[in-house]
Each structure stands twice: as structure tokens, then as C-alpha cells.
């Protein structure tokens, strides 16, 4: 059952197209992430679902009903804004109670519901604090509680962790996922951080330049990127141009390699993705791919080694050390080769 469907949505600002006829179905109770670089249209998509921006063309459906002209205050959708947008003149309690106050809910019910929300986001005891007197992580929780109190069907989150430091961000990722599971609300999450997208989501939507490039589970997106952009954006990769002479075979770097892909046209030019962690460092002498080590950077768990050879720069993640300037060879298995149509 789709809770939200976008059909052929287009919009441009000042003649600049921002979304180019995108369509997307969002299932009930899933955690879906719109992922892409800044300016790709992900925030605009979110604002169209929230009702803050009207698309030039296309339709928005909520539970199968068209809601194009419906103003934000009539939608069963709530938003956690970038930098939270907490009301500075209200304390924590009143910020969370805002949605209930609008509907003139009896005081007793307000107290009870705000109390529930505070314990959901682990902020019991903070009722009387002014919103400005909270840390970033606490403001974040208030923003979530405030958005959830109206029991929306869908919660929109616009880079909610962007303003937090790394450690807090990791913590909040887990907590957000928990809140989503416990509340059973559909989360639509916008981020430019691919790692965040992969850890938290049921479904990832990769966007670039106003278009949706790929929709899939985090595993799909990582292992089977549809084109070079997705491959490059999701994790680090070596992307090499090549040709498919036949099924299960690919030519690149002056050699023919065995692979597990099929269904391409004969001699179709393709992009080949090799993940740095799939490459193994071996002796240069008997390697089909070899070159000179240009740089070595220690990354904690592994070294990041850049090797120049066969007309390419290869990024390798290896626990073995290689000295700069020495010769090194590379090895990989057929299933490490990911082949994509030229985009």
C-alpha cells in the first residue's frame, strides 16, 4: 500500500529546472531516504510533499487521493526542519504542545500527550527549559516530538542531523531508527550523507540534477549501482571505461576479464566499477593490473593506497603497507566487477 505517490512532478525556479518529471511511490511505514548532492532537488521534493511548494506540473497523492492544492496545515504530514525551527519564545513543553493548542485540546490531554512524547525522545524533565537553552541534540529531539504529537501518517525530515557533531550524529541515527519502528510512522528522510542513508533506510532514492537515478534497498544501491554517478556517490569506487564483447566477459585496461554480468549488447561501451576494498595488493610481476604507488594514507583500519598504472588511478583499501614509488599489482574476483550502462 503506497501512502504517498508522486507522478511526473516538475518544477523550476527562475527558469532553472529543479525537478524534471520525477515519479516515486512511498510505501506505508517504511523508512525512505532521498539521497543526493546539494542542489539535486531532494529538499524541493520534500517541500512538495509537505505542501510548502507547489509543483509546476504533476500530481501528489496521499492514500490515493490527489492533494495538490491542500495547504500544509490540512495535511497529515509533519516536518522536522533543517536547524529545527523551534519557536524561540516558547519553552520545550509549549513547543511540543503547539499542534495540540491549535486544535484547542483540553489541558489534561495536552499534559498527558506531551509527557508521552517527552519520554519517547528521552527528554522528560526538560519541560520548562527555553528552546534556546538546549544543546543541538536536545533541540533535535524537541523538533521530532513536536512533529510527532499530531500523530502524522508521514514524517518528513530535512537533513535533521546536519548540525550535529559526528559522535552525536551516530547516536541519533540509531535513535531515529528506533523511534520510527516504535511509532510505525513513514519517515521520509533527506540527506547528502551516503553512509547515513545506507545505515538507516529501508529504501534509498538516489537523486541528481532533478532526476531520480535509482531506487532500491541499501544493498542493491551499493552492490548494483545503475550508473557511474550512483557508484561514485555511494562509497568510493574506481570507475573504468570498457567494452562488453559478450556475456560474462569485459575488456578494459588492455585485457579481457571474466565477469558475472550479461544482457548487454555486443561490443557495448560500459563503465566498470571496482570498489577499493575488493582490490587485493599482490606482487607486480605476475599481475594483470599493475602500476606505481603514488600515495599511502593511513585511515585507521586500513591504508588508502593510490596506484597509477594502465592509464588509470586506482584507489585501494588494504591492510598491507606499500611504499610510495614501489611497483605493485592488483587482483580481484569476477564477482567484484560491476558493469553499468554508460549514463
Amino acid at each position, binding site marked *: 500500500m503506497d501512502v504517498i505517490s508522486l507522478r511526473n512532478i516538475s518544477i523550476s525556479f527562475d527558469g532553472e529546472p529543479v525537478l524534471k518529471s520525477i515519479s516515486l511511490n512511498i510505501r506505508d511505514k517504511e523508512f525512505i531516504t532521498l539521497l543526493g548532492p546539494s542542489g539535486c532537488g531532494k529538499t524541493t521534493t520534500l517541500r512538495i510533499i*509537505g*505542501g*510548502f511548494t507547489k509543483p509546476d506540473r504533476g500530481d501528489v497523492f496521499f492514500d490515493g487521493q490527489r492533494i495538490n492544492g491542500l*495547504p*500544509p*496545515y490540512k495535511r497529515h*504530514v*509533519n*516536518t522536522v*526542519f*533543517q*536547524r529545527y*525551527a523551534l*519557536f*524561540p*519564545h516558547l519553552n520545550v513543553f509549549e513547543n511540543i504542545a*503547539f*499542534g495540540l493548542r*491549535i*486544535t484547542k485540546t483540553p489541558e489534561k490531554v495536552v499534559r498527558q500527550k506531551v509527557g508521552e512524547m517527552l519520554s519517547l525522545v528521552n527528554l522528560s524533565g526538560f519541560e520548562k527549559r*527555553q528552546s*534556546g*537553552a*538546549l*544543546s543541538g541534540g536536545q533541540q533535535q529531539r524537541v523538533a521530532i516530538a*513536536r*512533529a510527532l504529537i*499530531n500523530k502524522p501518517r508521514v514524517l518528513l525530515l530535512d537533513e535533521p542531523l546536519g548540525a550535529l557533531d559526528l559522535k552525536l550524529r551516530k547516536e541519533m541515527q540509531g535513535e531515529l531508527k528506533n523511534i520510527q519502528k516504535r511509532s510505525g510512522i513513514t519517515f521520509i528522510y533527506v540527506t547528502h550523507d551516503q553512509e547515513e542513508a545506507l545505515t538507516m533506510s529501508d529504501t534509498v532514492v538516489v537523486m541528481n540534477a532533478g532526476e531520480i537515478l535509482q531506487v532500491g534497498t541499501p544493498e542493491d544501491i551499493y552492490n548494483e549501482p545503475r550508473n557511474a554517478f550512483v557508484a561514485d556517490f555511494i562509497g568510493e569506487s574506481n570507475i573504468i571505461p570498457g567494452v562488453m564483447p559478450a556475456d560474462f566477459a569485459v575488456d578494459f585496461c588492455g585485457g579481457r576479464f571474466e565477469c558475472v554480468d550479461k544482457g548487454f549488447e555486443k561490443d557495448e561501451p560500459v563503465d566498470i566499477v571496482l570498489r577499493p576494498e575488493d582490490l587485493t595488493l599482490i606482487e607486480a610481476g605476475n599481475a594483470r593490473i599493475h602500476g606505481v604507488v603514488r600515495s599511502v594514507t593511513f585511515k585507521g583500519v586500513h591504508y588508502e593506497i593510490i596506484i597509477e598504472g594502465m592509464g588509470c588511478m586506482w584507489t585501494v583499501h588494504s591492510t598491507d603497507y606499500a611504499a610510495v614509488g614501489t611497483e605493485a599489482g592488483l587482483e580481484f574476483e569476477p564477482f567484484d566487477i560491476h558493469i553499468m550502462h554508460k549514463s
Partner: protein
Amino acid sequence: MAPEKLVRRFWESIRHIKTFIYRFYVWLVLVFFYAPIFVLMVFSFNNSKSRTVWLGFTFDWYLQLFKDETIMHSVYVTLVVAVLAALLSTVLGTAAAIGIAGMGKRQRALIMNVTYIPVLSPEIITGVSIMLLFVWSGLKLGMLTLLLAHISFDVPFVILSVSPKLRQLDPHLFEAALDLGAKPMSAMRKVILPQIWPGVITGMLMAFTLSVDDFVISYFTSGPTSQTLSITIYAMTRKRVSPEINALSTLLFIVVLTLLVIVNLRQSRDNKQPQRKEEDVR
């Protein structure tokens, strides 16, 4: 050791002399600013019509001031016009500032340039041009024209005092209120207005003070029956010279001083607020 000590003492005394000269200069300018005002005030208690010879202490001029019908009527006109102009220009200006904040760059630049015209052009031009409007449209000069003119030069100051408050707002606050179910008007009332309130009040006080203080524009746009205090003062300085003027200046000075202190306290409180919050975090 000794010569070094001497040199240091020499430089220290130079620094002291410098500070002394600086302070002396500041006091000199302040004396220049306040001597005339002080003279006016002292002679408001002088038991004589003379503006320069002291003949003993009296409160007579203050009593006469309150009995003088021309002055009292003009005080009444001034206050009515200033209060109405301040209220109306605050409503007009606050709405305008909110509207301008929602506009595109080009529209905003155009309107702000027009807004700056009365602020930047000489008062006599503003006065004369509005007078021409009334002459041309056949509107009779009086209380109404006075009020219209005052609102016109007050509004820009309200806008310029509210706009910065709006610019400091988180752009998503209004949307957040809508998102939580508030209709646009109630989002305005419950979220935006409380945030910009200090700017609105400061703008209103500014408008009021400017209106009370104005002479030039009132001079060109008021009729014979609607003379403001400034115009009456002007008439008095031209003809009948009476120490009532001195008494009046003293009272006005005290009123203005009080108003200014209030505005300043408000402003410094506004500025301090965010700092206080930061302290709470720690």
C-alpha cells in the same frame, strides 16, 4: 636602572597627559552641547521676563504655561497627531515589513529604495512635496493633512526597525507553524508577531518621538487650526518672547530624556537576551 626608570616614567606621564587632553576635549564638546540647554532651563525659574538677568526663583512660568490656551491646544494637537500617526504607521509599517520579507530580491530592492526616500531627502522637500499634493488635490490643510503627512514620514522608520527582526528569524518558523496545523493568520499571530514584537514597539516609540519632534513637515502641512507644539514655539520665537518657552523646553527635555532612556533600556535588553541564553546552556 635609573635612566630606564626615568624613561618609563616619562612615557607614562605622556600617556596621562594624552588621556587628560582627550577627556578635556570631550567635556569641551559636551559643554558646547549642553550650555544652551542649561541656560534655557535655568531661566525657566527666573522671576523676570528678562532672558539674561537673574532676578530670583519662581515657578510662575510653569503655571502660566499651563494656563496658556494656545500652548495647551497645540500640545493637545501634537499628542493626538503623534499617537494616531504612531499607531497607524506601526500597523501599516509592520504589515509592510512582513510583506516585503516575503518578496523576491528585485521587488524588495525597489520598495526599499522608495522607503528610503523620506528618510534620506531633506525635510523641507518632503514637507513641500506633500503640501503640493494637498494643494493639487484640493484637500484643505488641517488635522487630517497633518496626520497623513506624519504617517508618511513615520512608516519608513517602523519598517526599518521591524525588518531586521524579520531577517533574524529562522525562515522555517512560519512553515513549522503551518505544518503543525496553524492557519496562516494564526501562525502570524502566534509565532511571527511574538518574535518581532520588540522591533514593532521600538518602531512605534520612534514614530511617536519623530512626530512630536517634527517641525518642518508639520509647518507645511498643517492649517491654522491645527498647530502643533513646534509650530507654536516657532510663532513664539518670532513674536512674543516669554520665559514660558523656557519652562516648556525644560518639561520637553525631561519627557524626551525619559522616553530615550526607555528606548535605550529596551534595546540593550534585546541585545542581551541571546547572551543570557548562552549562559544558561553552560
